[in-house]
């Protein structure tokens, strides 16, 4: 078969285009992330801003380097499509806000080079690059990846100023002990392992309500569930994503959580705690909805999302890590080609198996 006619300037219809582009799509996702991110800067101060900035720059840098090494003629265009920027942004959303600079650099390398470019670049990767980096970092450097800080709004006196923030970011200043804190999921897991059940460990001020305002320890993606949710609704409204994946992820997490909590509230966290903690919202609306690594039909996305939600709940409840969203996403990413193979839309005039419909008896000649 000659591919010549594929390579030449297209002459086939249509001679009109709806105007959508990769850049526009990525820009809208970034716009949806902006409120939660800005709120995160306010909560966690300058170090979090430096981390966010360097993670993105690292991703862009490694993207440019990979393209150059592969001899791409479209380096500038590809950087401009916003996909590497978005990967860096999403990765930063999942990191502890005061993580040191080298986490950003290594994270960018893993996400872009190992997670994406070795597969052939944008659209070709099997796994979500940001989640690959998140998991690799967590497994390789568990200490800095689990050091959470209590929120300390920029306006408060104790918050580090620009210079101090930079020093913290560069690792010259240890995180003050007074600020070190644990995320809710990590805290309850530790307490449970010490034999203290949830009713006792959550007796204090660790209620889920705090998460709506975000003033509790965690990553950006955890701290501002409400703003993440708002961003998610923006994506739904603009048609960037459909309801299938987010609803399925949240349902896959909420249904087992509800059953567990009803059976034994001392050992199973409540639905609201599950939905508002960790990366649940970010995962449901921004991570699991990644086009490249999720199924391409609505029905497939429901299967995919339910799998993520369920796996997240299982890992959170019985796994070794307090949070399981990243693992769950990667596991379901691996299943995406299988889901796509089995869940296909019905072709008009054919049945689900692809056989032509029967010609009605009474009408046939």
């Amino acid at each position, binding site marked *: 078969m000659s591919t010549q006619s594929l390579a030449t300037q297209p002459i086939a*219809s*249509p001679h009109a285009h709806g105007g959508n*582009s*990769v850049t526009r*799509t990525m820009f809208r996702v970034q716009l949806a992330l902006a409120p939660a991110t800005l709120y995160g800067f306010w909560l966690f101060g300058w170090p979090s801003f430096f981390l966010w900035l360097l993670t993105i720059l690292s991703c862009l840098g490694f993207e440019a380097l990979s393209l150059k090494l592969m001899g791409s003629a479209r380096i500038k265009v590809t950087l401009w499509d916003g996909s590497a920027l978005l990967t860096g942004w999403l990765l930063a959303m999942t990191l502890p806000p005061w993580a040191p600079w080298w986490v950003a650099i290594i994270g960018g390398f893993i996400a872009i080079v190992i997670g994406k470019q070795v597969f052939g670049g*944008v659209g070709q990767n099997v796994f979500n690059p940001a989640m690959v980096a998140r998991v690799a970092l967590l497994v390789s450097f568990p200490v800095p990846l689990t050091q959470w800080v209590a929120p300390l709004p920029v306006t408060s006196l104790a918050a580090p100023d620009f210079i101090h923030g930079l020093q913290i970011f560069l690792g010259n200043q240890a995180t003050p002990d007074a600020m070190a804190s644990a995320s809710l999921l990590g805290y309850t897991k530790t307490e449970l392992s010490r034999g203290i059940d949830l009713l006792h460990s959550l007796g204090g001020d660790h209620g889920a309500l705090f998460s709506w305002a975000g003033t509790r320890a965690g990553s950006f993606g955890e701290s501002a569930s409400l703003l993440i949710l708002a961003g998610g609704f923006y994506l739904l409204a603009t048609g960037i994503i459909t309801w299938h994946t987010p609803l399925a992820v949240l349902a896959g997490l909420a249904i087992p959580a509800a059953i567990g909590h009803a059976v034994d509230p001392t050992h199973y966290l409540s639905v609201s705690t599950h939905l508002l903690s960790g990366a649940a919202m970010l995962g449901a609306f921004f991570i699991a909805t990644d*086009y490249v690594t999720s199924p391409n039909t609505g029905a497939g996305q429901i299967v995919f999302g339910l799998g993520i939600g369920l796996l997240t709940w299982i890992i959170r409840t019985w796994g070794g890590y307090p949070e399981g969203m990243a693992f769950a996403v990667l596991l379901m990413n691996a299943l995406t080609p299988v889901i796509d193979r089995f869940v296909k839309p019905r072709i008009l005039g054919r049945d689900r198996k*692809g056989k032509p419909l029967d010609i009605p008896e009474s*009408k*046939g000649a």
Partner: protein
Amino acid sequence: MGFMNLFKTVLRGNWGVHPADHKRPAADQPIRSLPLPPRLHLMLSQHVGAAARPVVLVGQKVKKGEVIAAAQGNISAPLHAPTSGIITAIGEITAPHASGLPGMAISLDCDGEDQWIDLDVPADPYAVSPAEIAQRVAAAGIVGLGGATFPSAVKLNLGRRSSIDTLLINGSECEPYLSCDDRLMRDRANEIVSGIRLMLIATGAGLAKVGIEDNKPEAIAAMREAAARFGEVQIVPVPARYPMGSDRQLIVELTGREVPSDARAADVGVIVHNVGTAFTVHDAVCRGRPLVSRLMTLNGAASAMPGNYLVPFGTLVSDLIAFTGGLKGEVAKYVMGGPMMGTVLPHARVPVVKGTSGILLLDAAEAAAMEPENCIRCGSCVKACPMGLLPLEMSARIRNDDLDGAVDLGLADCIACGCCAYVCPSHIPLVQYFYHAKGDLSARQRATLRTESTKKLAQSRQERLEREAREKAEAAARRRAEREAAAAAKAAADAAAKAEPLGETA
């Protein structure tokens, strides 16, 4: 009904797209006639099926409506002179096709008198027998004017043979830029309804449903008024959504029936004709006039006078442009048909044919081609596809030369509507991929057929040789047996002869 629609939406999704329609101001201009150009060029092949066969000679004088090329075979259509004049050439000219390849055409120099032949008009057209209506439609050279250009009479006869209960009339005109059907329905509603009634008689269907997109309120009102006296003709507004005018989609929308993918519309008891076709059926049966001109849209940012024009077939696009005030700026792309499914023209010196619903003169901004990027698997194409296909998966297989994989995914069901490429954020020319693959597929099928027929020939030769050898051997054996039998008989006779004297002596 509302619940059913919601149910259908959930079940089938929101197929199709809503392109900016660009129909106005052209749609609001009254119908205008184009003056006769000095010369017309009539393509012999401007319909589905076998090309017409010229029945005139160079230098011959013809009148308007005279047959200049006859239909050949079962699926074909005759051509008539669009005006009176002299045949000046029968030869090749550039065909209105993206390839720019030549095709056979009859050239006619117009004498300016526009003199009709004697027209045969039946006394009561609605009393004419179904077979005769189809025969008159065939003789008038009528083909599907929605763009498919399938000979209409063949479809009418098919309807009579295969128990059609509903005749669907396509007035959806879902392609952006085009408004000729809209204009025709607004200004010639009575003639269209008359044509529909004739087609009802010809097909034997009891009911006609006219589907008109709800973005044409004037057309719906005009058609409702014209059809008010005829209960068998229903006007049904349908949602404006591309490609509503595609027959399988329109059949689902108007009747709820789904045509099996290997069957025809007639197999589920319906048949679809375009409003333009209905109009010409009226013209052919009630006025005896063959199809010699059509209403078509001239549009695009580079056209000086966008609007709907009554154009004789064979008019060059360049003449059309000259008659309508020339160009406004520079044309980046000439398109015949609508922007979603139309054909690029190599240049403006190609003639208007029966299937020309519009000529678009697109400027640089409208024709801007974006550089394709990698597929990001966003699934926009899956949501847009009105057939329920997976364009992204099919194109990925075609890129990898996996034609069988693409066929398994339903390549043959693709109607090339262009929705996928229209919504693709990566600007991948998906339809081009599918045309390419379909071309390869038919080439492969042809090659397979050829191989098979060669094999069959070789096999039958082998069989023939074996049979001949066998027959030869049998004949030889038979002859030997005869010889032996004769020899034996002779020997016996000899023995008897020898024995006789002995016996006598005994």
